[in-house]
């Protein structure tokens, strides 16, 4: 599925490829997310002109990417997929390339969890369950500041992105739910933020690293 999507993406990019443009195949990751709950890797294409570029990438995540090993709450393999796309204006090219850009991103997560709890924020209650499918969608818009370094055909870019996200988290297919009223999350949940079932707007910062190969 992911490979087919990449192929379609590549074809679409080729159709709109200007004659003077360069094309990079890129591998991208958000390093902070590797330490969080549901890490992912991106693969995509960037089309670059003299002082502009547009790009898109697909991402996919799996458990093996995580830096920590305490995932006892997972009952099976999980799937994360998403798509990012953006444009950027290249400000300077020497000694390294700096750019400002905009991008949109959407991702979806589905994870089976066992013997856990989630907190329905509105109305406030907790639900203990034997098995449930955690689902999350995130739609975000970001402003990017990137610094790209070249060595021959190889390039590496670090990108700081600031923006907002609409995050929706919910649980489906709950087995043996045990509902407790008037319960709120007792502590700040960071790596276990998935336990809150809610829809929120959030400000976000994303630090990304991209490695690319010019075709």
């Amino acid at each position, binding site marked *: 599925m992911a490979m087919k999507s990449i192929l379609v993406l590549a074809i679409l990019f080729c159709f709109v490829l200007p004659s003077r443009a360069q094309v990079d195949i890129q591998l991208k990751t958000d390093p*902070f997310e590797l330490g969080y709950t549901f890490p992912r890797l991106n693969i995509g294409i960037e089309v670059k002109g003299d002082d502009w570029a547009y790009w898109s990438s697909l991402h996919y995540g799996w458990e093996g990417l995580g830096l*920590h090993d*305490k995932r*006892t709450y997972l009952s099976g393999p999980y799937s994360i997929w998403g798509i990012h796309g953006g444009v950027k204006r290249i*400000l*300077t090219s020497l000694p390294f390339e*700096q750019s400002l850009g905009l991008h949109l991103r959407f991702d979806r997560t589905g994870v089976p969890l066992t013997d*856990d*709890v989630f907190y329905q924020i509105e109305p406030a209650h*907790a639900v*203990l369950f034997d098995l449930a499918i955690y689902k999350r969608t995130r739609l975000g818009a970001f402003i990017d*500041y990137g610094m790209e370094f070249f060595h021959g055909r190889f390039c590496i870019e670090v990108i*700081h992105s*600031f923006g907002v996200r609409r995050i929706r988290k919910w649980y489906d297919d709950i087995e043996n739910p*045990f*509902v*407790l*009223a008037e*319960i709120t*999350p*007792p*502590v*700040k*949940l*960071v*790596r*276990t933020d998935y336990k809150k079932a809610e829809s929120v707007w959030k400000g976000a*910062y994303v*630090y990304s690293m991209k490695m690319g190969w010019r075709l």
Partner: protein
Amino acid sequence: MQRKPGLVVIVMITLFLTIGFQCEDGGYIAIRGVSKVEIFDRVSKEVLPAPISTTTDSLALLISFELEQFASNEVSFSLMDEAWADCPDGFCMANEITDIRVFCDKAIYNLPVNSDLAGLLTYRVQDIIESVALDEFLDILPGLNEGYYFGVFEGFTMNFPTKPAPDVYIFSVEIEDNNGHVFTASAPPVEWQ
């Protein structure tokens, strides 16, 4: 192009706000069920093993609970464990006992079969609550502080007022919480001679 220091400041502040790890203290404990109902002799302070045949008039039902702790998180980094200062120190109860019902498979104390006996019994928690009536017991429970409340779940007794007519009795218990969950369990048969 000269790099703007403002950008670096924004990045650092955002990083600081983004990174944090949950400490492991605090959380909730929920009553998930009645784990067992045993026949207890208040004089000898012993649980009577099955098969139970007795002449004593000091019997009680000893109730133990099945509890589930949640909300504290097993995932933790050693770095910044103390980053969140607002973790509660102890545990909070996520549900409360709001009603207790006791039934017998035989007519007992001039009540027909399957009548609720709970109002006839007295309730006691070792070193915490002396024998009190049901209404008073239910009033006292939510006000107990944490340590005492957990004592309740280690076992409280429902004391029979007198020895009933000789027969073999099976008692069952229903305990309801404030969320409408009803936890049920039965005691082993007791032959009262």
